[in-house]
């Protein structure tokens, strides 16, 4: 076992390899590893944020759904009310129209009746006058007996 020049040679070799590793190997590897670490950290952070966002969105969606349902219920309610109202109004209008028509018809009927009565009365009067004429065979002065006849007609 001799100590010789190999000692110095090994020292120089050692320093050369250390230098190589220091300059070319270490920075590249560590850089890549740190970059990945950063990437993973960002990824995790983003995932967390995304899950939070998702939760928020779900909550929001649920809220909106509830709101929409409420609104729909409200709208249906309003529509129902309005429909009832329209039906009521229509009913009322129909009733009023019916009443009006009934009244008009009644009035017409009354008028017809009155007219018929009037006609009848005048006819009766004429008939009775004619009858009386024939019976009495006398020429009755219509003017003289008008009052009488009118009275008779009124009694009919």
């Amino acid at each position, binding site marked *: 076992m001799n100590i010789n020049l190999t000692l110095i040679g*090994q020292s120089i*070799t050692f320093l*050369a*390899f250390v230098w190589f590793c220091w300059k070319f190997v270490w920075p590249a*590897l560590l850089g890549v590893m740190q970059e990945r670490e950063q990437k993973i950290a960002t990824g995790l952070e983003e995932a967390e944020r995304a899950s939070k966002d998702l939760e928020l969105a779900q909550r929001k969606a649920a809220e909106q759904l509830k709101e929409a349902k409420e609104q729909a219920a409200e709208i249906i309610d309003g529509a129902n009310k309005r429909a009832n109202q329209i039906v009521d109004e229509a009913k009322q209008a129909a009733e009023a129209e019916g009443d009006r028509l009934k009244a008009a018809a009644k009035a017409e009927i009354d008028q017809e009746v009155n007219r018929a009565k009037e006609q009848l009365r005048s006819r009766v009067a004429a008939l009775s006058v004619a009858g009386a004429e024939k019976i009495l065979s006398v020429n009755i002065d219509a003017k003289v007996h008008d009052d009488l006849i009118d009275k008779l007609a009124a009694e009919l």
Partner: protein
Amino acid sequence: MAGEAQTATDYIQHHLQNMAYGKLPAGYTRADGSILQESTWTLAHSSQEASDMGFWAIHLDTLGWSIGLGMLFCFLFARAAKKATAGVPSGFQSMVELVVDFVDKLVKDTFPHRNSMVAPMALTIFVWVFLMNLMDLIPVDWLPMAAAKAAGNEHLYFKVVPTTDLNATLGMALAVFVLMIFFSIKEKGALGFLKELTLHPFHSGKWYVDIFLIPFNFLLEAVSLLAKPVSLGLRLFGNLYAGEMIFILIAIVFGVGVLGFIGAGLLHMGWAIFHILVITLQAFVFMVLTTVYMAMAHNREDEHENDH
């Protein structure tokens, strides 16, 4: 396995000798008995030759394997870094990232100062030392025999585990030591570093007392400072050397009959499984201690005092 002509001792010694390349002086008697006419640069043919080459020799196998494995580390990790995406990581990338993340966390825990070099250094140490240690799990004869066949030289020395060579582990520890001194001076200034060496741990606050304490402090601090790289290098070397030694001893038993073959097989498996733990642990310890030493080098004196 020991060859017919080899004794067990030869076998062990052969396995523990690095492929040394150095200069032998003129007139040197070589292992085969020939005498060199002039000084030559050559491979050592025996342990004696290797040690006679002195300091100016180089272990080709240690340096070759450590540089090769270091380049493998650089290639694999640089490719992973180049291909890396911030998206879903693929198989090899996620393994690399696992290691990088592990080292990064550990360095962040033990090294509270700002220095972009320490974490990559820890990664380099961990993976590189681990790869070098891993060579220990390859059966001890495979690569040396293959190399001997390829070179056509039966006595080629070829040690494949760089961390079982004291030069390699102490070499790395030396580099760590140099960095410790460098960062100490850079962070605290030369004077601050000197103060740290001379005014600790004994400090009275009166200059006329401190002057006499300086030699003691310096002795203590210098020893503790020097002990760091030495223990760092020796710990790794010792563990791996012992592990390698046991693999070699088990390999010898393979040649002793059928019973020896089965027993050695079981032993080898058991030791290899245990050794998986050892090689990882030693790579880890080398990395952690280096990081701690770097943190100490960055510690300022005032912070140091607050610790007590």
